[in-house]
Structures are given as C-alpha cells and as structure tokens.
C-alpha cells in the first residue's frame, strides 16, 4: 500500500556517537530542531532528523496517518539504520508516535526518551478526561485550520504570545515556524488535526 512510498533510507543526520532520533511536532519538520543540533552533535551524539510522512521532505502518501502507521514508519527508520541505545526525542504530536512505537515494538532499542511539551494523554474532554477542552472548541479550531492555514496562524499569534513571550521569540523566528506549518499540505495537517487540533 501507500506505506511503500515512505523512504526511510536517507533521513538527514548530523554528528556521530549514540543515536538521538527526533520526532517533530504537528505541521513542522525536522528543521524545528535546528537550534539544538549543533550543540548535541558537538556533545558527541548522532542526531537522526527523520520527518513524518506528509511533512517536510518526506513523501505525501494518501493514507497511513494513524498512529500505528506512523509508528511503523519510525520503526522502519530505526531498523534500516540498525540503531541501538537510542534516545528518542518527541515534540508535541511527535511523542505520540514514540509512545505507539514503544507499545508496538518494545523498548529493546530505546534507552531513554525526552518529551518536549507533550499533548498526551489527550486534550479533548471526555469521561476519563473531565478537565480537557470542550470538543466544540476543538472542532471550531479544526474548521479554522481547514478554512485558511495562514490566517489561522496569524489569529493564533494575535490572540496572545502563542509562540512565547520570551525575548527569544523574535518576529523572525515566529515567521519561520509559521512558514513550516503553512508549507505542510493542508490534507496532511487535517489528517491529524481532528484529534489534536492545536498540538504543534
């Protein structure tokens, strides 16, 4: 099936040493780790900058955006490079792939993990998640993304310091991050948007 379109043979890498595999956030691509990679490579780590299907420079197959398929893609990368003693790093949506990878493939190859701003266990309000967000709010957010991604990014930023109010969040960096989301095909954004609408 379409999974064959995903080519795990050449994820970008930087540095050498124990491997660190990065799973980027919804709508972003491996570039989001740009400011961490030089220091980590200098510290003696092999940074494997894999990109989720549909995102960045990966293929854009029509199917396979459920977490099982995404975990299989990650496993394909890990198996192809025969990585051992791995540190898995996942940001936001990326860490859901990591969790599913571990429950599907076990932790024999993985030594440790880093979750950056995870969206687990879930944002949507439900019986077992009573303090979660109103589903109507998430549905409205989904509709806003579907209607106009650049507008959605702009309104999010206008509503408050979405990308952070710290001095480091300069307009240039905000623009760069927004562009990654805008450049991701809408059909891909929406595939994972209904359940985790604001999980960049």
């Amino acid at each position, binding site marked *: 099936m379409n999974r064959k379109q995903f080519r795990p043979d050449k994820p970008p890498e930087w540095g050498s040493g124990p491997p660190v595999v990065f799973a980027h956030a919804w709508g972003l691509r491996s570039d989001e780790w740009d400011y961490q990679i030089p220091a980590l490579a200098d510290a003696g780590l092999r940074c494997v900058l894999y990109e989720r299907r549909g995102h960045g420079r990966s293929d854009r197959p029509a199917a396979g955006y459920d977490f099982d398929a995404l975990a299989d893609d990650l496993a394909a990368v890990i198996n192809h490079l025969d990585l051992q003693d791995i540190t898995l790093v996942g940001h936001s949506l990326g860490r859901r792939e990591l969790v599913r990878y571990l429950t599907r493939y076990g932790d024999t190859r993985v030594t440790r*993990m880093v979750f950056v*701003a995870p969206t687990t266990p879930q944002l949507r309000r439900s019986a077992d998640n009573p303090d979660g967000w109103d589903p109507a709010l998430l549905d409205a957010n989904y509709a806003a993304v579907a209607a106009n991604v650049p507008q959605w990014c702009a309104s999010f930023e206008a509503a408050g310091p979405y990308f952070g109010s710290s001095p480091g969040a300069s307009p240039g960096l905000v623009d760069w991050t927004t562009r990654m989301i805008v450049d991701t095909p809408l059909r891909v954004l929406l595939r994972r948007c209904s359940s985790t609408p604001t999980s960049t």
Partner: protein
Amino acid sequence: MTGELQKIQVPTLVLHGDQDASAPIELTGRKTAALLGSATLRVYPRRRPRPVRQRPRGHQHRHPRLHRRNPGRPAGRLLLMRTVGATATATVRFLLELGAYASLGYWGASTRGAVALRAALAVLAPLAAILV
C-alpha cells in the same frame, strides 16, 4: 493514550513551559509525567519580557496580554534614568529663572550684567527645554 503511557518503563524526561497555550501543562505534561513509569518533569517558567518600549514597533499590538501587564511605561533602569534626567533639567531651569529675576531686581534692567544674563538665558532656556 493513558493505558499506553502506564506501560512505558523507559526513563523519560518531560520538558514543558508553564505558559504553553496549545498544550497546557496541567492537562498534558504533568499528567504524562505522572502516568509514565519513570519520568522526570522539568518545568520552564515564564521568562520576564523586556520593557515594552525596547520592543520593536507594533510588537505590543500582537501581544495584548503583555500589553496589559506593562501599559506602555518604561521599566527599571530606563525609568530611573528618565526620572533623574527630568529632575536635573527642571532644577537647572528653575535656577536660571531665579537667577534672572534676582539679577534684574538687584542690578536693574539696564545694567550690563542683566543684558548678559538675558543673552545667556536666550541660549540656555531652549536648550533646557530640549533636554526635558
């Protein structure tokens, strides 16, 4: 994913900002760390923003929350410098005017000293005004 998280035993570092709007820490990071078998939660607190006046023009319009907290007033050292500057200029101005009136009354309006003082005032007063 609650059940899945509980099964994971891999040591995990959870990093989360306490101002995260898209994934509020109480709803996500803190719960995730509690569910995992072996997790360390590290919270990044809100960094103090720089004074509004030092930000690029128009920045505060895109950050209404920030704008509310710092309603356009310079903070810290900048405020101190401005206060000291304004006080010094006001004092100089006051002394100049006082000197002018005193000398006029003492020497009379036609004396040389008063003419010189008037000339000095004509230069210094605008200068003082500019400084203020």
